[in-house]
């Protein structure tokens, strides 16, 4: 088998794994967009916030330590304990639910019935506010996140591919874990929205507010729930990205990578977010591998956006989005 083909296979596999991570972020967008028609620009920052909170709790950091020390002239930074990963994840989730409640109570509730662009602007404001709060709470230095997920090259794949092709594939264990977790997450989300009372109520609210009220659904409750679920997805994405490349502010920029994913998959489709993520992941790695050297590399920076642009021209609703039919 020619070497180039074997390389390409490895590139595709790695692309799929990267795509899973894009898909995880895109999922959070889809959830909120489906249920409330809001494009939540803050989704990426939510992932950052979740990851920072998780690290902070695990290391026993005192929240707002800098602020407290500056105000009272003290020098406290750590409680002096370490919280086990699982407990820290649960606590972080509680913080995300609290955040969801606060967003609904103090921002979104006052904007019910406003134009989508206004809601979008509100989420931009939210993104920067949250970034500031995260900074203030946990400090702005780059942190490492280790919740005990396996990392490094998967030796079994390395060996078995070496035996077959004479060339060992480099697949990161973390990427495999991310894939499994993403699959579980999607299955859970689908089961939730199709079969549970809360999921059905969520779809009802997404469709018509008045009708939802008339069958006894509390809009506030559903919106808090949706933002909580999006917070949970952000937490999962934050853990994956944080473990991979450290918890830092550039994490919030992965939100921008989710945009082309959504263009491809459609803003309203959960499977679309996954497939879109995989296409972007594989596409950008393969493009860099095949075409990159000819144009001087660094195609990963723009490939996804150009692909999204092409999609916008030919299929604006995305692969799985609801088709927009205008009656004339």
């Amino acid at each position: 088998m020619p070497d180039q083909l074997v390389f390409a296979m490895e590139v595709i596999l790695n692309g799929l794994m990267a795509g899973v991570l894009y898909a995880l972020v895109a999922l959070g967008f889809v959830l909120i967009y489906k249920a409330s028609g809001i494009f939540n620009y803050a989704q990426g920052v939510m992932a950052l916030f979740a990851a920072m909170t998780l690290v902070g709790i695990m290391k026993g950091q005192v929240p707002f330590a800098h602020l407290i020390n500056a105000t009272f002239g003290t020098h406290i930074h750590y409680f002096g304990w370490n919280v086990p990963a699982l407990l820290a994840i649960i606590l972080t989730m509680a913080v995300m639910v609290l955040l969801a409640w606060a967003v609904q109570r103090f921002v979104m509730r006052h904007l019910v019935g406003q134009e989508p662009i206004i809601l979008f602007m509100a989420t931009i404001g939210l993104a920067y506010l949250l970034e500031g709060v995260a900074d203030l709470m946990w400090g702005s230095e780059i942190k490492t996140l280790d919740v005990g997920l396996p990392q490094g090259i998967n030796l079994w794949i390395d060996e078995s591919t070496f035996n077959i092709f004479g060339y060992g594939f480099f697949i990161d264990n973390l990427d495999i874990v991310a894939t499994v977790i993403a699959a579980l997450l999607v299955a859970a989300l689908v089961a939730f929205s199709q079969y549970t009372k809360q999921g059905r109520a969520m779809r009802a609210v997404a469709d018509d507010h008045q009708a939802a009220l008339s069958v006894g659904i509390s809009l506030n409750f559903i919106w808090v729930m949706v933002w909580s679920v999006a917070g949970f997805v952000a937490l999962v994405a934050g853990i994956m990205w944080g473990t991979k490349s450290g918890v830092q502010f550039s994490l919030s920029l992965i939100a921008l990578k989710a945009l082309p994913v959504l263009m491809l998959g459609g803003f309203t489709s959960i499977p679309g977010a996954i497939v879109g993520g995989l296409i972007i992941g594989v596409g950008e790695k393969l493009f860099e591998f095949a075409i990159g050297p000819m144009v001087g590399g660094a195609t990963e920076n723009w490939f996804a956006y150009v692909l999204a642009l092409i999609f916008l021209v030919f299929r604006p609703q995305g692969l799985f989005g609801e088709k927009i039919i205008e009656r004339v």
Partner: protein
Amino acid sequence: MLDSSEGYVTEDGRKIGGVVMEMKNITLRFGGVVAIKDISFDIREGEIRAIIGPNGAGKSSMLNVISGFYVPQEGEVWFHGSKRPQMRPFEVAQQGIARTFQNIALFEGMSVLDNVMTGRLGFMKTNIIQQALWKGKAEAEETENREAVEKIIDFLEIQHIRKTPVSRLPYGLKKRVELARALAAEPKLLLLDEPMAGMNVEEKEDMSRFILDVNDEFGTTIALIEHDMGVVMDLSDRVVVMDYGRKIGDGTPDEVRNNQEVIDAYLGVSHD
């Protein structure tokens, strides 16, 4: 006849029970505009109660007060013998008051069946894990709710469109789906906001028949708003007549028909 707290018997021999809902001195203002002015009336168990009046009389406002969409500045709402605290619309719905809307509020993206199923959300008691895993009681519960819904779908003769997305249905059928969804909640009180508005004669006749059948078959207490006098008089047991936010008549269709103030309101008399 109407004074008895024990209820009364209608002309066609149906037994009407005690008071289900009582509105006491309701006043509703929007800024300086008085939409409802000091109106009191009651709705009794098993009856079809109509609220009629010319456009802008405040009928829809009254229905919105009952269903919690509007909060009156003055007056009390009594439901099943106790004063109702201020409630939000979804809480009113959970209490057993279902409604339809003048401008149809359906879940356009869902099928007819899914729409009607949302009326059963209040009957889903198993927990979220059971439902997600489709385990244990969740499946039995789903079957039970599904049966109740199928019964209503049969009853309203919309079997043939069960799987059709609501957005594709004509107006008259949408109204019927909305009625089905309200019925699925097994309401103690069913509010219909202009159920016949915008319908042709045939559709109106169908709808009238369904309203009567629902009342007869399920014993549902119904309060409806309509400005088509003819339809209302045939359907209802008692009628409240509103004009400019005031109550100008209350009684059986015959009593109302012969009420001079009502005649003036409908035919137009100069208010000096």
